[in-house]
């Protein structure tokens, strides 16, 4: 059988292609981006015509995938964990409508916040929506699980959540490839997915009736397994990637229940409790399973984990904190270095965002009351030295709306900085609110023609930004396009100054291509010649 060296993300992608995928819908977000990128460039996927263009945001992605499922085909939605918040409305309700073609929603969680603003655990969303969750432990399972996930989705007619974490998404290992399945034919649902209260109540009841089926599937899942061993003192429940760290620490010595499919396999947990004095739950992310196991076994039974301090309450698991929780230690030999400094990421030399912040720094120095509300992207690094220009960065699109709210409260000048891709993702609606209220804010859409932070993916609104702003009702007199170059910093600062003085909505669009994509395009052009 063929073996390929794949990232966890790439294994998910190839697994989906071989499971008969017809379309992937996604917005880029670390650590999920490489799934869609793999499908976009994979020859087999291209030959099969699998739909793979980037979506404007996670909600449009989720809804389009549900539409493809309605039409009878298999669809995959991919996002980083916080993307689940953006698509939550569609996601939760897709469990009420149910599905037709298999629908898999992939959430890539980021414990330790390597590249994120929180470490929320997507398994809560799966539980909330009352659907099955898969949590593969390694790259091979990332590949293998796709066929089972799509099959289960079509068997129970519900979406399925697939949860991975950064360390699996971005780690490579050899994966054995199996045979590819054909895509489903077009076969639109004849059921009504109209969630009027009368229908929704009936469908919700049907979803609840399916719960025992989902539990049974988890109890019989090939991805969940019991390893007998240990001395009866401590049973170990290891979820997803945690299983690897447990095996690294204790090999075959323990009584382990590996959980890679939910709802929790209750029978196996009850049996483990009967055979051991205590149970430790080892899971990456938040103590989701620990709480459930506590509830299942009652207050008299000792359950250890993140809540009891046996494992750290926050941050990702690693071979060291898991070993420590199991009474083993990986003793450090060398003392920490003394001549060592942190080296945080920084905006590239020559990046246009630098020139935008050069101008903004002048403004902030001139107006002590000014506040700059930031957003999600490379330009969030403007919060760090030498610019120190941002007061906030919360979620996709929050720059414009927070500036608006602050301006409503009387704050002047209120400035928003948002990237081009983030603006189309979730900034446009906020700008419409501001325009309708004639809020005195200055919005800077720092347009580098790409989705830069995740590696230069297509930006949904490319070449449409002026048209979008005007279409939303912007006064053309207060819409400016400038070129962010060091020599233009004084002129850009003057434009900002002029617009701060205006008691209404202004939009300034500094536009220059990301230097990384610029260099890539130059290389591609050279190679094509």
């Amino acid at each position: 059988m063929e073996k390929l060296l794949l990232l966890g993300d790439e294994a998910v992608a190839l697994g989906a292609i071989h499971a008969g995928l017809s379309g992937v819908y996604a917005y880029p977000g670390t650590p999920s981006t490489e799934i869609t990128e793999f499908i976009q460039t994979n020859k087999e996927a291209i030959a099969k015509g699998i739909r793979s263009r980037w979506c404007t945001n996670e909600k449009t992605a989720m809804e389009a995938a549900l539409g493809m499922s309605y039409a009878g085909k298999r669809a995959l939605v991919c996002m980083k964990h916080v993307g689940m918040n953006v698509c939550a409305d569609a996601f939760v309700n897709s469990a009420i409508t149910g599905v037709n073609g298999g629908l898999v929603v992939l959430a890539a969680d980021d414990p330790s916040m390597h590249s994120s603003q929180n470490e929320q655990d997507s398994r809560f969303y799966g539980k909330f929506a009352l659907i099955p969750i898969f949590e593969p432990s390694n790259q091979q399972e990332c590949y293998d699980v796709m066929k089972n996930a799509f099959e289960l989705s079509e068997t129970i007619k519900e979406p399925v959540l697939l949860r991975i974490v950064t360390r699996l998404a971005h780690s490579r290992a050899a994966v054995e490839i199996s045979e590819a399945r054909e895509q489903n034919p077009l076969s639109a649902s004849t059921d009504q997915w109209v969630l009027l209260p009368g229908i929704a109540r009936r469908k919700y009841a049907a979803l609840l009736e399916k719960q025992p089926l989902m539990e049974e599937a988890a109890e019989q899942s090939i991805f969940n397994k019991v390893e007998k061993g240990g001395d009866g003192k401590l049973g170990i429940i290891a979820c997803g990637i945690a299983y690897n760290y447990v095996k690294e620490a204790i090999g075959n010595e323990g009584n382990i229940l590996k959980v890679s499919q939910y709802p929790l396999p209750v029978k196996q947990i009850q049996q483990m409790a009967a055979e051991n004095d205590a149970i430790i739950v080892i899971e990456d992310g938040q103590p989701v399973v620990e709480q459930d196991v506590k509830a299942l076994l009652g207050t008299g039974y000792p359950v250890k984990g993140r809540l009891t301090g046996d494992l750290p309450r926050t941050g990702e698991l690693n071979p060291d904190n898991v070993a420590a929780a199991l009474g083993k230690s990986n003793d450090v030999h060398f003392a920490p270095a003394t001549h060592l400094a942190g080296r945080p990421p920084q905006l590239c030399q020559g990046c246009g965002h630098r020139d935008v912040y050069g101008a903004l720094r002048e403004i902030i120095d001139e107006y002590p009351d000014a506040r700059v509300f930031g957003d999600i992207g490379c330009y969030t690094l403007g919060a760090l030295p030498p610019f120190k220009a941002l007061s906030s960065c919360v979620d996709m699109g929050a720059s414009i709306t927070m500036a608006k709210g602050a301006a409503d409260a009387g704050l002047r000048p209120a400035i928003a900085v948002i990237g081009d891709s983030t603006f189309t993702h979730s900034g446009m609606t906020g700008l419409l609110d501001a325009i309708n209220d004639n809020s005195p804010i200055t919005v800077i859409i720092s347009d580098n023609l790409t989705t830069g932070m995740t590696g230069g993916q297509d930006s949904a609104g490319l070449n449409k930004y002026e048209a979008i702003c005007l279409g939303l009702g912007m006064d053309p007199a207060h819409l400016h396009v400038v070129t962010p170059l060091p020599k233009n910093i004084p002129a850009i600062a003057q434009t900002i100054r002029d617009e701060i003085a205006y008691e209404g909505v202004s939009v300034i669009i500094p536009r220059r291509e990301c230097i990384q994509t610029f260099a890539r395009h130059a290389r591609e052009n050279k190679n094509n010649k």
Partner: protein
Amino acid sequence: MKKDIILCGVGGQGILSIATIIGQAATEAGIYLKQAEVHGMSQRGGDVQSNLRLSTDPIWSDLIPQAGTDVIISMEPMECLRYLAYLSPKGTVVSNSVPFINIPNYPDEKAMQAELDALPSVVKLDIDAVAKDCGNARGANMVLLGMAAPYIEILTVEQLRQAIAVVFARKGEAVVEANLKAFDQGVEAARKVNL
């Protein structure tokens, strides 16, 4: 046999290319491999590292346990010092000797180099100069891989050479030759250090 390697440096210095070549050699040799990388959050200019695990037996964790690293391969001298907790008592550090200073609070260079030199097993070289001398200024990472090659042990120097040829084949014969030359210079340099 098992070899745990940390590759480190500053974003943009080419550590992922080193990882790709070792990965190719390991795949060709049929040994087990796991390689955890850092992506995203515009790592350019920031510290980057990759955990690379090679073994003749299956590997569980994607991450290397503390005090478990056999070889730290670094494109920048201070960056080696970031991973000392992970270095095995018998581990070796193979590093570029030239600092990359892009932060205002870079430590005193002499003291930093002395701290690095005080480790039991260190192979250090100005790889940028070696790369330039053999006419491949962009091949410093291949010089470094050559220097590290004798310490990887689970893969032979020849297996790594073949992997370079495969990985760069797409870019043409001249690029392959230039990178092999840089690699060979690194192997030679490491041999001299050990004499």
